[in-house]
C-alpha cells in the first residue's frame, strides 16, 4: 500500500471549536479542498499560543495539519482574515454564527464543495463590510440550498407545473416552492408572499454577494422572507438551528420583551 501523505495544508474557515483538556481545542474547519473536517489544536488556549487567534470562530486562513490516529493535528496556521468588524457587532456575530452553524449541520465530513466554501467566505466578507446581516443570511440560505440541490421553485406550481397567477403567491416550505390552489387544496404549511417578497427571493437566488451592498428591504418583506426561508431550511435540515434563537433574543432587547429583573 502506498504511504499516504502525513501532512497536508488546507484553506479553511473555522466553523466551530470546543475546548478540551487544559489547553487544547478541537476545531471544526470547513476547508475549500477537503470539505468539513476536525482537527486538534494543541495548547491553543495558552496565553502566548499562536494558534489561539487562528482557531477563533469565523477565522479564514491557511492551516497546516498532520494526519493523526483519531483526529488530525493542526500544527500551524496563517490567518488571512479574522473579521474584526463582525466581532465588534453583536448582530453580525449572531448572523455569522448562524450561517456557520448552517454549513456545519448541512455538509458531510470531508466532502469538498468549492462553491459553498466561496459563498460562505463572501457572506462573511459582506457581514464584515456592514451589509444588512439579515439580507446576508437570507441570501446565504437560498444560495446554500441551491448548491445542495434544493433550489426552491418560484415560477411554476410544484404539483401541476403550471404557472400560478401572481394574485395569490403560496409558498410551501415542505414541498420546496410555490403551489397553486387550482390543482388541489393548498398544503397546511403554505406561507403567503407579497409580490415584492417574491421578487426579492428571485433576486437573492441569482445575486452575487457583492450585489447585496445596495439592497435595502422594508421590514414586512424581511419578515416574510424570514418566515418562508427559515421554515424551508428547517424542513430540509430536519433539525433546529440553535443560533437562530439567539438572533430572536437579540431582536427583543430594547422592545420591553427582554430579560427583566425578577421582582
Amino acid at each position, binding site marked *: 500500500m502506498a504511504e499516504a501523505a502525513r501532512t497536508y495544508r488546507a484553506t479553511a474557515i473555522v466553523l466551530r471549536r470546543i475546548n478540551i483538556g487544559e489547553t487544547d481545542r478541537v476545531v471544526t474547519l470547513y476547508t475549500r479542498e477537503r470539505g468539513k473536517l476536525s482537527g486538534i489544536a494543541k495548547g491553543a488556549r495558552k496565553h502566548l499560543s499562536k494558534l489561539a*487567534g*487562528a482557531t477563533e*470562530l469565523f477565522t479564514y486562513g491557511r492551516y497546516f495539519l498532520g494526519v493523526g490516529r483519531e483526529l488530525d493535528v493542526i500544527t500551524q496556521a496563517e490567518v488571512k482574515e479574522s473579521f474584526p468588524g463582525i*466581532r465588534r457587532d*453583536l448582530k453580525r456575530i449572531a448572523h455569522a*454564527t448562524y450561517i456557520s452553524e448552517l454549513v456545519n449541520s448541512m455538509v458531510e465530513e470531508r466532502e469538498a464543495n468549492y462553491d459553498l466554501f466561496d459563498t460562505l467566505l463572501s457572506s462573511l466578507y459582506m457581514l464584515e463590510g456592514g451589509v444588512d446581516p439579515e439580507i446576508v443570511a437570507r441570501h446565504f440560505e437560498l444560495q446554500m440550498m441551491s448548491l445542495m440541490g434544493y433550489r426552491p421553485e418560484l415560477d411554476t406550481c410544484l404539483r401541476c407545473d403550471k404557472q400560478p397567477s401572481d394574485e395569490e403567491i403560496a409558498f410551501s416550505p415542505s414541498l420546496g416552492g410555490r403551489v397553486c390552489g387550482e390543482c388541489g387544496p393548498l398544503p397546511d404549511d403554505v406561507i403567503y408572499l407579497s409580490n415584492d417578497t417574491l421578487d426579492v427571493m428571485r433576486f437573492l437566488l441569482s445575486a452575487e454577494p457583492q450585489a447585496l451592498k445596495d439592497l435595502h428591504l422594508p421590514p414586512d418583506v424581511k419578515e416574510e422572507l424570514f418566515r418562508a426561508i427559515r421554515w424551508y431550511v428547517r424542513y430540509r435540515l430536519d433539525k433546529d438551528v*440553535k443560533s437562530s*434563537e*439567539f438572533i430572536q433574543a437579540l431582536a427583543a432587547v430594547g422592545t420591553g420583551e427582554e*430579560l427583566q429583573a425578577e421582582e
Partner: protein
Amino acid sequence: MYYAKPLAKLVGELEKLPGIGPKSAQRLAFHILRSSEEESRRLVDAIADVKTHIKMCPVCFNFTDKDTCDICRDPKRDRSILCVVAEPRDLVAMEKTNEYKGLYHVLGGVISPMDGVGPEMLKIRELLARFKQDEIKEVIIATNPTIEGDATAMYLADLLKKTFGTDIKVSRIAHGMPVGGDLDYADQATLIQALEWRREM
C-alpha cells in the same frame, strides 16, 4: 483482570476526571493505595466536604460555604463597582491581581448561540436585580476576548444601557498584547485589538 476489584474501581473513577488518562489514573490509584490511612482519609473527607458544604452565593453566584460569600459580606469592599465574570475561576483570577476591590457577579457561562446557550440561561436577571439593592455605579465586564465573550459583553452592555441609561458606567477590560508577548508573533486579530484599545501616554 489486571487489578483486584477495589483497585480497578478506583482506577475507573479516577479516569473519569478531566485530563486524566488510564496511565495517570493508575499512577494516582497506586499512590493512594500506598499512602497512609490518615492521608487517604483526608482526601475522602475533602471530597465529601466540598459536596456537602459548597453552594452558590445567592448574591454573586460564586461558590461559598456560607449563606452569603466572604466577598459579598466584606465591609471593606467597594460596593459601587461590580465586576461581571463568566465563571468562578475567572473571579479567582481577578482576585489574584489584588488590584480590584469591588464586588463580583458570576454569570455561570457565556452566550454561545451554537451550543444553544442563550442569555436567559445565564444569571442576567439576577444581575439586573442587584441594582435595586446595591449602590452600583460602575460595571466592569471581564469576559474572555473570544467570540462568545465578545457577544456576552456586548449583549450586557446593551441591556444595561437600555435599562439604566447613563446612570451606570459600563466598561470592559482591555484586550491586546499579553505581558511578555512578542509583536512579531501576535496574530492579526490581537494586534487590531491592541491598536483599538490603545491609550494616550
